């Protein structure tokens, strides 16, 4: 399952938003071909951590290594260029643009005329149409329709479809099954496992320890900006991990009360 050096290595990461200490000395490794569940309550720091990995936040201190190389600059463009694809909960789609335009936002295919890069509308439309059909969007939705028209599940499907289409090395999913129907949820979970089997690193963020325990090789639990558990799913049951989440909260609260 894991081989040699980790694909992403996070070392002693701290992140402050003003006075707020959002990530506290977090160290964690992620390997290629691994599906890692990142679990914790609201405000635990899961999303903040992955926003560092996808280049949206720059850590205050600590180090991040990608494929053995230290990451010096944090920017979404650099992360995407390195093959880190992120499916985020609330951001990622611009309502005012068509599905095809959203699909290729930031990496638009071009056809040069007199050296000027023009959008290659044919490629944009054809590829995104194929993907939205594959992901079961309503038949009357076309790639030229604005994202505004889509339901919550359809938006999620577009984001996941995009991540799969451009998959490179890492796919990070932040609560990917929110707003989805039971069947859509199963489909997404199958995809996550499939991606892992193809050798990608999949980081799967959720509240639902029972759901992700079935899929993941390893579970990382966060609480109040700290990593409080990092265990293989073969070693700990979902019930045990749930207990850690419950206890972990108290441990941290007790520690804060003392200090």
């Amino acid at each position, binding site marked *: 399952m894991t081989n040699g050096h980790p694909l992403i290595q996070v070392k002693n990461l701290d992140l402050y938003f003003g006075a707020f200490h959002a990530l506290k000395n977090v160290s964690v490794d992620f390997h290629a071909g691994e599906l890692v569940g990142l679990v914790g309550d609201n405000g635990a720091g899961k999303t903040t951590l992955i926003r560092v990995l*996808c280049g*949206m936040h720059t850590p205050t201190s600590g180090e991040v290594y990608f494929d053995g190389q230290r990451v010096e600059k944090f*920017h*979404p*463009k*650099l*992360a*995407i*260029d390195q093959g880190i694809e*992120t499916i*985020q909960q609330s*951001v*990622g*789609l*611009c*309502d*005012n*643009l068509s599905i095809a*335009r*959203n699909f*290729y*936002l*930031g*990496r*638009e295919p*071009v056809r040069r005329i007199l050296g*000027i*890069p*023009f*959008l290659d*509308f044919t490629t944009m439309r054809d590829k995104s149409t194929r993907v939205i059909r594959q992901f079961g969007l309503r038949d009357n939705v076309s790639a030229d329709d*604005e994202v*505004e*028209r889509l339901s919550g599940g359809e938006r999620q499907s577009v984001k996941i479809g995009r991540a799969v289409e451009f998959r490179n090395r890492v796919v990070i999913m932040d609560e990917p099954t929110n707003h989805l129907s039971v069947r859509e949820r199963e489909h997404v979970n199958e995809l996550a496992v499939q991606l892992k089997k193809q050798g990608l690193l999949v980081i799967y963020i959720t509240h639902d320890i029972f759901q992700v325990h079935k899929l993941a090789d390893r579970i990382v639990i966060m609480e109040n900006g700290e990593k409080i558990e990092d265990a293989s799913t073969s070693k700990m049951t979902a019930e045990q991990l749930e207990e850690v989440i419950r206890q972990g909260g108290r441990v941290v609260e007790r520690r804060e009360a003392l200090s």
Partner: protein
Amino acid sequence: MTVKQLTHTQGLGAIIGVVIMLAAFTMIDFSGWWTRQTIANVVQFTAILGFVAMGQALVIMCKEIDLSVGSVYGLAGVAFITLEPTLGVPGSLLAALVIAALAGLIQAIAVVKGQLPSMIVTLGGLFTARGIIYVWTGGSVHNFSEAARNHPVTRLLGGELFGIEAAIFWLIAVGLALNLLLWATPFGNQLLATGGSKESAESRGVRSDRVKVAAFVLCALLAGFAGVLTLCDRPQTHVTLGELMELEAISAAVIGGCLLAGGRGSLVGAVLGAFIVVSFRYELIALGAPSSWYITFVGVVLIVAVIFNQILARRLGHSV
């Protein structure tokens, strides 16, 4: 363009507005409106305001605003005339455009790097540039020499081509290029995305700061070019050159369907908006109404247009 696309364009309101306006002017004042002089004036000033309005539209589509365009327009015009004796016509034209672009660049950097509201930064720009005009000209009027008036560049920009004001040809050429830039290039896609949802655009790797800087610089360049065009047509400066033009340009862009919420708008609409604003000015003159009524009419048209565009946008299911 299919019927569906036409009804989905943000410029639809302006198209309807132009039709209604032309019908009304034709009915109430056929002889005054359809004269060579009125049409020539309307065409000339639509072209000039159209340039400024297109730039403003690009900035509004980024969810920003540029209040400095009137002053930048004036500053570029003053630079063009006062630098001409030393630099010659082509040299001073270039210098005027560089000054305009710099004005846009400085303000844009303040907005994106300082994370300041563009309304305040460009309000500062409005006063600063206007102050420079006052100091530079010393309040006096400057003219082109006879040789500069007859320079081929001056005539190409300010004269007539095929019996029609040259400015309109420039507007069509630049307008076509800008439409392609906005709707058919990666830059345009990223500009619309930045205006629609900056956070989402950035999460996809769009450098929204750069996009905004480019929009502000383009806007200032267009305003500067409009200033040069005006001076080529009437080569005389005045310290008030371009005063209140920022408000006319914003009105034109909004009448033309630009939503201040960002991400939606139309360059063709902005030009049609400019046509509506300018037409009201000349029709009132043609009717012999006191020119002071003009501002009131623009205000009323603006409010009616905004209401209309909002209704239109809701009907199309946009969140506004």
